[in-house]
């Protein structure tokens, strides 16, 4: 077995066997899903407490038509607030002073505790409807109500993309945006988490002084690349395990909960009726985005962006003695990554804007920004040019990093500055 693969193997297995890796891999998706599910579950728990609301309707027009809900009971209560104030512990008092079609339509809800927004909304919509019905009736025109109802037109926009073979596909900007953001965030997370892991690994070997033993057996470049590649594999493993864990959880969820998983394939007959039309459109749009293509470029851009930044992180780890000194060197690296994230967030709502396009070509930002563009469809030559530039840059950055790394790992005690780094990089006479 050659040395590089031996080193990759050690870097990989020593990390995958760690408890923290297992926790990250299996607990993280669970935790995320719980964070999403718990509020959903809690909100679906029925509030079966019935609250009584005293209604003081001076006009007498509305009380008879106010309908009780499972949670709110509207109870008549005389003509004035004073009359029923101390009678029972009502949740709230609704006071309607006059006919709402005349003058400013204001009603008041008094309470000791702040009332819930649902009560306010319910009362408001009920009364608004009644008032406008009354008003329409007061014009005494035959069939006016019907006319008004017919005149309400809501325009719906469907976005449709032509595929390469000329077919039409329903799309959704929202869903493209969400997918773009999720993949961009994942790449951002992976570059930081795994780039940092590379740096800490280098610092650990340097401060343990084992590095001198290893470079007496293998070339520093082999050690550096072995570490970078080994950790990249850890990242990919984690990503695919997450995908598997999420899929398993979704399947389990659909068995026990009532998530209509069948709807994921809208072509299946008989399922359409069970779904509200909005969800169905979303699912159709989801299927219009080629997930395979996104996954393919996601893995490529993850590797490219990671290799670019991880090699720089390795160089920093080699140049310094302990992690406290890292900041002066890592700061110039975090700025472009952060910038890329913000450009990506902005680009999600404006995928064809000049900032988004440019940033999807610049190698330091393209791994993140291109992810945002992908679900909206990107010309193939954009992808080729962008990835070509990224590949060139990471070849260059790896070479540069190797120069710093190979000198740095054997230097102890001296504080490394940018000037010293330059002396390591510049060509020998």
């Amino acid at each position, binding site marked *: *077995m050659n*040395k590089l693969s*031996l*080193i990759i193997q*050690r870097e990989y297995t*020593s990390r995958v066997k760690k408890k923290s890796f297992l926790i990250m891999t299996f607990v993280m998706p669970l935790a995320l899903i719980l964070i999403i599910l718990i509020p959903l579950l809690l909100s679906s728990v029925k509030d079966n407490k019935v609250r009584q609301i005293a209604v003081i309707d001076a006009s007498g027009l509305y009380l008879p038509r106010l309908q009780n809900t499972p949670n709110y009971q509207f109870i008549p209560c005389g003509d004035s607030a004073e009359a029923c104030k101390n009678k029972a512990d009502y949740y709230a008092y609704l006071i309607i002073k006059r006919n709402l079609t005349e003058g400013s339509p204001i009603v008041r809800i008094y309470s000791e505790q702040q009332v819930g927004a649902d009560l306010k909304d319910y009362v408001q919509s009920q009364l608004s409807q009644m008032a406008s019905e009354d008003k329409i009736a007061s014009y005494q025109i035959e069939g006016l109500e019907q006319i008004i109802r017919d005149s309400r037109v809501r325009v719906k926009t469907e976005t449709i993309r032509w595929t390469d073979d000329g077919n039409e596909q329903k799309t959704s900007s929202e869903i493209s945006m969400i997918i773009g953001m999720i993949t961009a965030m994942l790449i951002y997370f992976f570059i930081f988490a795994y780039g940092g892991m590379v740096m800490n690994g280098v610092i650990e*070997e340097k401060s*343990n*002084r*084992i*590095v*001198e*033993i*290893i*470079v*007496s*057996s*293998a070339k520093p470049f082999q050690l550096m690349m072995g570490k970078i590649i080994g950790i990249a594999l850890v990242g990919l493993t984690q990503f695919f395990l997450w995908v598997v864990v999420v899929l398993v959880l979704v399947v389990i969820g659909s068995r026990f909960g009532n998530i209509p998983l069948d709807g994921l394939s809208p072509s299946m007959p008989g399922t359409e009726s069970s779904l509200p039309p909005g969800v169905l459109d979303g699912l159709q749009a989801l299927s219009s985005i080629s997930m395979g293509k996104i996954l393919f470029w996601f893995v490529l851009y993850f590797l490219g962006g990671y290799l670019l930044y991880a090699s720089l992180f390795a160089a920093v780890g080699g140049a310094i003695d302990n992690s406290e000194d890292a900041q002066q060197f890592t700061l110039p690296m975090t700025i472009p990554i952060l910038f890329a994230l913000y450009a990506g967030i902005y680009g999600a709502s404006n995928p064809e804007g000049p900032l988004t396009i440019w940033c999807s070509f610049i190698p330091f930002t393209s791994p993140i920004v291109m992810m945002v563009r992908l679900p909206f469809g990107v010309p193939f030559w954009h992808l080729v040019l962008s990835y070509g530039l990224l590949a060139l840059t990471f070849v260059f950055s790896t070479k540069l990093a190797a120069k710093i790394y190979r000198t740095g790992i*054997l230097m*102890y005690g001296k504080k490394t500055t940018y000037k010293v780094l330059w*002396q390591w990089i510049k060509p020998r006479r």
Partner: protein
Amino acid sequence: MYYVETRSIVKQYTGHLALDKVSIQVPEAKIYGLLGPNGAGKTTLIRILNQITYPDSGEVLLNGNPLKENDVYHIGYLPEERGLYKKMKVAEQALYLARLKGLSKQEAKKRLRYWFDKFNIRDWADKKLEELSKGMQQKVQFIITVLHEPKLLIFDEPFSGFDPVNTQMIKEEILNLKAQGSTILFSTHNMASVEEICDEIGLINKSKLILQGKVQDIKLSHRSGIYLVKLRLPEDPDRAKSQLEKSPFFKIESSSLDPYYWQLELSIRDGLNNNSVFKELYEHFEIVSFEEKIPTMHEIFIKSVKS
């Protein structure tokens, strides 16, 4: 036959010359002591032999041939700053490092078993390194250095951090390796251990090799012609003393008196035989001992580095 030979090696770092035309010759199956004060350039030379760095000019020969990449398989290196993976299991990292040195997994396992039994640390194989005492870690490190049975062993301060029992054990192992035909390059500040186990030495000072050869030859060539004499005090010491001071054969370099003995360092005048001195002495005193003063490696080291 030299196993390792360097030919006018020059290594320049920014703003400082680390090695200035250093040529050492290390004979096969011998222990060669590489000596020198801190910062003299020993570590740089050792790193060049290990191909961790490369010389700006000059060449390194191993067994007569220029050093090449695969020669690392035949070299075992114990750096002065010891280090292993703290969180990795002992046997696991020994296997890993042995395989980096070209051993197959099976072979490495077999040899590891032998050494763990020999050093009586078999129970520790599955422990993480950080759970071991410092002395134990040193043993593990020694095993890792020799596991692939290298023909050339480079030890940088091998005894530092060992208690006397373990020091003795490692010393015996080093002599064992030599007996089996390994060539050993041994860098140290401990001059007593140099006298004890080194066959030849090379002394580097301020980036230059200033002294090289067999330990015995170097010691003899640094003789100063001084003799250590121990005499029993006569009845009238003062008279005897004044007698000696006038002697034409020698000069008294130093003397110390205690109630029973008189200890002298004498330098004999040029062209004279020891026996004439001896004769002069026994006419006045009872001689307890008479020996030529041979400088220790310690003295040679200090004298050479200071001059």
